[in-house]
């Protein structure tokens, strides 16, 4: 069964005497799952592609690079005896899509463009990934866009499913994302909007005036991420106590927990366990 205390740390010598065999298995397991262009052995043309776009906000073209990770087992500060320390993995989010988008997406985006003359500034990116449409929206235009999305008969996204915050500490300048899921019961469609704000200025307009059901969702996102929804009728904490310091779902907020001793072994708290990311 899963024993979190068993170290997978190659430099450490312990009761587990099967290290070489394990390493061989890890090679088998790991190498195919990493993108081929992420390893140093990748072809030169892919590498040339990757080098000029370091960590940071995604470029207008090509996939959005979230982070570059080195090594394999999350081990830092010990000699690299495994040989995997040179592995390099680039974390790429799905990039913007090109027309034709397919399905109902082209018509809907054309309709938005017809309704909003400044559609180019409103929608900064159109991403179609795994069959779902995501519109990245400039925050200052969010309210106008959702109003059109709800009210126009050809769009008619009358159903507000929820807003969920995501904190990307490495996405400099747009660390905090608010992800809205809208639904059109009339046309049986689903749409995702993604709005981002920098950590230094965590303000996003509230959509409560358009979707009253967004009330508690925005309060929760404020509570958990510190995103301030301007125009919300009473943006207070909802799940945490009123006097709680910090915003728990942010990546810089610790999970907490204590080590547990079991049959002489010390099992670290979940956030101090080996991370394979």
């Amino acid at each position, binding site marked *: *069964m*899963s*024993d*979190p205390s*068993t170290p*997978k740390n190659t430099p450490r010598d312990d009761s587990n005497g*099967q290290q070489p*065999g*394990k390493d061989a*298995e*890890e090679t088998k*397991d790991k190498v195919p*799952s990493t993108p081929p262009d992420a390893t140093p052995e990748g072809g030169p043309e892919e590498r040339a592609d990757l080098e000029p776009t370091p960590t940071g906000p995604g470029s207008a073209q090509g996939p959005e690079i*979230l982070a570059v990770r080195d090594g394999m087992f999350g081990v830092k500060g010990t000699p690299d005896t495994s040989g995997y320390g040179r592995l390099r*993995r680039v*974390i*790429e*989010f*799905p990039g913007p899509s090109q027309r034709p988008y397919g399905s109902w997406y082209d018509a809907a985006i054309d309709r938005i463009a017809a309704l909003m003359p400044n559609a180019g500034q409103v929608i900064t990116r159109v991403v179609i*990934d*795994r069959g*779902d449409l*995501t519109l990245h929206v400039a925050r200052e235009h969010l309210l106008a866009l959702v109003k059109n999305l709800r009210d126009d008969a050809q769009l008619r996204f*009358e*159903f*507000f*499913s*929820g807003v*969920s*915050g*995501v*904190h990307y500490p490495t996405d400099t300048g747009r660390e905090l994302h608010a*992800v809205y*899921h809208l*639904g059109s*019961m009339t046309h*049986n469609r*689903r749409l*995702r909007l993604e709005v981002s704000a920098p950590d230094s200025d965590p303000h996003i307009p509230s959509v409560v005036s358009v979707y*009253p*059901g*967004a*009330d*508690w*969702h925005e309060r*929760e996102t404020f509570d958990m991420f510190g995103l301030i929804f301007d125009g919300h009728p009473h943006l207070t904490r*909802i*799940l*945490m*106590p*009123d006097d709680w310091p910090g915003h*728990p*779902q942010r990546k810089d907020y610790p*999970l907490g927990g204590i080590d547990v001793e079991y049959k002489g072994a010390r099992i670290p708290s*979940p*956030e101090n*366990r080996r*991370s*394979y*990311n």
Partner: protein
Amino acid sequence: MTSTTSDQDLFAGQGEEPAEGTVYTAMGGDWDDIVTEQHDRGDERIVVNMGPQHPSTHGVLRLILELDGETVTELRSSIGHLHTGIEKNTEFRTWTQAVAFITRADYVMPLHNELAYVLSVEKLLEIEDQITERTKIIRVMMAEWMRIASHLVALGTGGMELGATTIMTVGFREREKIMDVFEAITGLRMNHAYIRPGGVANDLPDHGLQLLKDTLKSIKKQMPELSKLANANPIVKSRLVGVGHLDLTACMALGVTGPILRAAGYDYDLRKALPYSGYEDYEFDIPVRDEGDSYARFRNRIDEMWESVRIIDQCVARLEETQGQRVMIDDPKIAWPAQLSIGSDGQGNSNEHLKHIMGQSMESLIHHFKLVTEGFRVPPGQAYVPTESAKGELGAHVVSDGGTKPFRVHLRDPSFHHLQALPALSEGGMIADVVVNIATIDPVLGGVDR
């Protein structure tokens, strides 16, 4: 504090202007003090705190009611008393381990939580096409049992809150049969961690099909008692008819889904609108009512249970046809390595598997160890698959950064969303009807607070 009011504003922050006039703390106090205060006021206005430990608030829900006599003039809900950080915790576990957390969100419909999360993860992995037919049938069957069980709790506890304890005993008696089915199949009555990325934890036990048939027979025979007791019962009707009215316009504005929306006249059901897990292959109807009151919601839930029974009937026939098929994806990089089985002490690794990895195959042990401790990687991206849970639209917004753990999991819980409608249902009505309104919204605070 001995009183519900104070002349000092306890809620003003440092440096803030205190509110003018009387501040209502609603913290409880001595009844005599409250009566004395009220006597001096000369009107009927009173602020009452209800919960978080009130038995008819379905868990730890706190309501602050402003009353004029027995009429509710304002209602505010306070939630978060059961916040356990389920979403944060999943970020520190593997994709498979996270199921064991997610299942605990809405603990009255754990399998629906699991299904919503797992469908999103499978969408991220792009393995939806590889899920076997039998897996999908088992998932649908379990989800429908879950729907019946959840509705029975909603109706049973709702009845109990009205004082109709027989509705409760009938509801829980029938639910117990379903719990027995769950226990036989998953090893547990609740918090199953049964539906996992790639499939389900284990196939039906040897006597599974017979058990399903027996339970169906017994439910079909005895569940009608609930309708017979309640449907035309004048006491039930006088408490429910015309109470807690939420019409279609209000439902749409507030984003209300599930049985509440269908009781207001819109036959929107995600099992039909955006089918998942092969729901498009089953024959069932969507019960709709137009009244939009508590009685319509009550009756609609009963009708939905019978539609679920219809679906399970079809599932049993299909399970018979697909015996022997895998219930986990045929991809050793994702599939849980052990064939789990149900022992006398619950779910565990099968003895054959333990014998194999401990005594016969070093490689199998390594493979098992890698997948169990490290898990599998999920390509970066995000997914949200809406599902029709017992209470309405339930979906998990899942974000992956390409690692072995979720980057972010957010459960869009229907109870959380629907509780927002409670003031709209209750304000202007009687205080006794607040209890009815909560019962017919059917919130479960484990899901609301997560």
